[in-house]
């Protein structure tokens, strides 16, 4: 078949309590099995094993299942590691598989392989295409969200440093008579060291889990005074498992992290959506809209009491402002004051004041998320980004060793190129033409 890569991914939604399944498909399955569970199990027979990391330490325990090609879902050798779930543990399992040479699957890639290897009916082509399409746009959205805040600042500064280095090195290779020579410039070595240090720090911080545990995001949206903030306090205040409190990036957007049935959830309170003239408010609304566009889930908060007469119209109006978001729940707040006769499927009656209905709301959100995280969330997006950084730094470390040996100019250039190729998975491709463009903008080239 056309693919030689071994791919891996979490095959189940993330959660603290249930079972987590990591699936591996491709030629490295046997190696992964031998390294992680000691042997390649008999095909199609479940075995209970320890999952080991590189040092032989137990990461988790669980069932391991091997499906020999072509009798597997994808038609290739497939290994399934069924562990105890929990984001951190499952991430360690995936990380170990990556370490052994696999790469993270693209969205929908297991199904794609199944189809291309004749494991699926031709009539399913449309469905697979739809899956890839929707999963990819979801992944793109998650990747964008992973790249917000501090993480993004650091990644961008690393990429910028790398490009500066490459521009200098490539310019002195392609334009040797323009009086640029990196081999004689000690600053190149220093810059290389700084870059390695920066990536190292970022990986370490992320490895501690703080960045990885961001989880699913839910934005609270609605008109001002609908009770968003009190509902937020309700959801977070009653939950004892608040792990961090992230200061809002703006006065108007507030972030809090809670755990809902084991799934880390980031709650985001936004400014009320209304058209105002005050510049501060306009800015607040703009940011709110941005959060909504990026969110996994929107919790639309409605003031029942204020909309006794036009409730349906009011809800429709609010939903119409959501940019193509299907993942929403409507919280009908202030139910202690007034209740409509009919409550539809995606709605829940709640009172932030009395706390009544908050448990129902929680359950509904959890249910929604359970459906949602089966496609790619921030967690996986960031894992992807860290994987790219890991590969990038390996190239740079080899580059450092080469810089000392001053006949190896082209080899250093090659290491920088492969580092950029890895980091390009985070920031988008940086083509050779982009590189030349930057060179021509930085140096006066040409005879």
């Amino acid at each position, binding site marked *: 078949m056309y693919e030689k890569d071994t791919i891996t991914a979490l095959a189940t939604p993330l959660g603290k309590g249930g079972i987590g399944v990591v699936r591996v498909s491709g030629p490295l399955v046997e190696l992964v099995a031998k390294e992680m569970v000691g042997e390649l199990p008999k095909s199609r027979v479940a075995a209970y094993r320890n999952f080991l990391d590189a040092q032989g330490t137990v990461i988790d325990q669980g069932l391991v299942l091997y499906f020999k090609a072509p009798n597997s879902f994808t038609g290739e050798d497939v290994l399934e590691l069924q562990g105890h779930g929990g984001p951190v543990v499952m991430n360690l399992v995936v990380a170990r598989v990556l370490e052994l040479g696999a790469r993270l699957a693209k969205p929908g890639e297991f199904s794609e392989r199944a189809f291309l290897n004749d494991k699926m009916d031709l009539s399913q082509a449309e469905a697979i295409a739809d899956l890839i399409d929707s999963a990819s746009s979801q992944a793109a959205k998650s990747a964008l969200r992973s790249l917000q805040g501090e993480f993004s600042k650091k990644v961008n500064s690393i990429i910028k440093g790398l490009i500066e280095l490459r521009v200098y090195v490539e310019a002195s290779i392609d334009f040797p008579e323009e009086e640029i020579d990196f081999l004689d410039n000690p600053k190149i070595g220093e810059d290389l060291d700084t870059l390695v240090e920066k990536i190292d720090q970022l990986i370490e911080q992320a490895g501690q889990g703080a960045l990885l545990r961001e989880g699913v995001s839910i934005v609270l949206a609605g008109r001002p005074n609908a009770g968003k903030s009190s509902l937020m306090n309700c959801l977070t205040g009653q939950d004892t498992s608040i792990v961090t409190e992230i200061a809002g990036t703006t006065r108007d957007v507030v972030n809090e992290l809670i755990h809902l049935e084991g799934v880390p959830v980031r709650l985001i309170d936004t400014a009320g959506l209304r058209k105002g003239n005050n510049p501060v408010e306009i800015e607040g609304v703009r940011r709110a809209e941005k959060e909504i566009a990026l969110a996994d889930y929107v919790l639309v908060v409605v003031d029942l009491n204020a909309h006794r007469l036009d409730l349906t119209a009011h809800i429709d109006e609010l939903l119409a402002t959501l940019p193509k978001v299907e993942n929403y729940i409507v919280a009908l707040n202030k139910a202690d004051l007034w209740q409509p006769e009919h409550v539809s499927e995606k709605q829940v009656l709640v009172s932030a004041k009395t706390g009544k209905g908050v448990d129902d709301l929680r359950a509904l959100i959890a249910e929604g998320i359970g459906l949602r995280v089966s496609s790619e969330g921030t967690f996986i997006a960031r894992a992807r980004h860290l994987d790219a950084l890991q590969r990038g730094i390996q190239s740079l470390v080899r580059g450092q060793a080469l810089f000392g040996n001053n006949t190896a100019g082209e080899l250093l250039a090659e290491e920088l190129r492969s580092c950029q190729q890895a980091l390009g998975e985070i920031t988008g491709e940086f083509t050779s033409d982009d590189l030349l463009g930057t060179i021509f903008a930085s140096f*006066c080239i040409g005879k």
Partner: protein
Amino acid sequence: MSEKHFDVIIVGGGHAGTEAALASARMGCRTLLLSQNIETLGQMSCNPAIGGIGKSHLVKEIDALGGAMALAADQAGIHFRTLNARKGPAVRATRAQSDRALYKAAIRSVLENQQNLYIIQQSVEDLVVTGDRVEGVVTQMGLHFYASAVVLTVGTFLGGVIHVGMEKQQGGRAGDAPSNRLASRLRELPFNVGRLKTGTPPRIDGKTVDYSELQAQPGDEPRPVMSYLSTGEEHPQQVSCFITHTSEKTHDIIRAGLDRSPLYTGEIDGVGPRYCPSIEDKVVRFADRSSHQIFIEPEGLKTHEIYPNGISTSLPYDVQLALVRSIKGFENAHITRPGYAIEYDFFEPRDLQSSLQTRHLAGLYFAGQINGTTGYEEAAAQGLLAGINAARQVQELTPWCPDRSEAYIGVLVDDLITLGTKEPYRMFTSRAEYRLVLRQDNADRRLTEQGHSMGLVDDRRWRLFSEKLSGIETLSEKLSKHWVQPGDDRVEAFTGKQLSREYNLLELLKRPEVEIKALLAALDMDNNNVAESEQVEIDVKYAGYIVRQQQEIDRVKSQQDLSIPSDLDYVAVAGLSNEVSQKLCAVRPETIGQAARISGVTPAAVSLLLIYLKRHKASAALKSA
């Protein structure tokens, strides 16, 4: 045989046209080369140099495939240098300053002595088109020539306009008429036409230059060569180049003349190359620089004219004269030919197939500047490829195009047909992702065998190449069987410390500090063939990197081999965004690999294409069954 009927017709006798004509004729096709002026066959219209970074890589590939450029450069070369000598073999390059007259004579002689090749001096004004096929050409005298494949290599002659200051006139090169009839005829056909611009500096009479003020730059000794067949003995007398610089005064003169610069008054629409800007561009864009380097290239052994590389300009003559005379050494300089800018038509290269055949007219091939490239080497490489594929079409064989991992020629063509170009396209080593395997020292090992099987390589070249290959093999076997012991001070002089165990010489060569030449000398294993020992050394020292690049190549190759039907309806592919399907429609990639390289085509889009193709193929198979 009829004087009107040929297998292949080549239009244009520049660097692209001559390689195209020679390739086609070598492959046994009855080939007609039509040139406006036989005296200008092989003319260097810009600076008198062949090669340079990325470019000598192309020249050596042309040579490995039996082309003429490298041999002509060796016969005409009056100054040779190796560039990037210490940055590693993959980015090492060779540059040859040429005597223009000798270069032209060398090319003319090869052309005149080529079997199957007929040269006629005629300007082509029209194509003979039947349906969507080209069947021949019509010349200015109304002569009709017929062939099933026609290669257009018309350089900057299509709709050429020359600018000097606010004066402009039609021309294909200073002193030559443009091909306007052909240009307007081609504009009637369904090609996408754009405008590009390039320029030259004023030429100067060397007798009026004060060389005592200038820094001389002699060529390298021992002299590098371009062709795998050359030894250096074919080189004529060698001379030096010189270096001087512009001054603040020069820049003031230029700034004062900008109101009469066609570049800055909007007279020129064509896009010029960013890596080869005019001096007025450099002064405006890098205003903080107080000086720019000028590289003085000799035009030949029997002329005093020099080519001051670095002051390409389209400013008016009086400003040119003043700016030249403000430069050190040029205080009394006499301009023999004013500099100028030239604008010309080029055709959207994304309308080409990898064979360089146009998608709109079967049998019609484009090569050289007409495709938006610049440079003799880029033109010659395309000419060679177009000539090969025109001949293969006649012989009813599938087209040949090397992959990006096989040759710079492959990188050049793939870039052009996949990404198109916005400025005159020039080769750089940074364009090649497999740079470490595409070296100028191994072009023969990459291509000569393929060239031989296509009928491009003559017996002498094939014999020398075969000897080289077996020499490499013999030497590396000899080294692998020669063991040295700890305490052998002939060897430990290189390693700097005692060997930890017994080593064979190939293993020792892996160490960066051990060089093959010195090692062989120290052990009295003299090997006179530098080309062979160099290959053994690079193979060993770069083995790790080469293996890694090979893995990357293999991974991409599986996609590269999956072909896409040329009539695929991208709108029907489920899930593709409008933007992506438009891009795919514009390029019509030949393989999945090429599709993936189009900017904006995401991995998800590639997956969708794969799924569509699979279903498409399966339902087609069902129908035929």
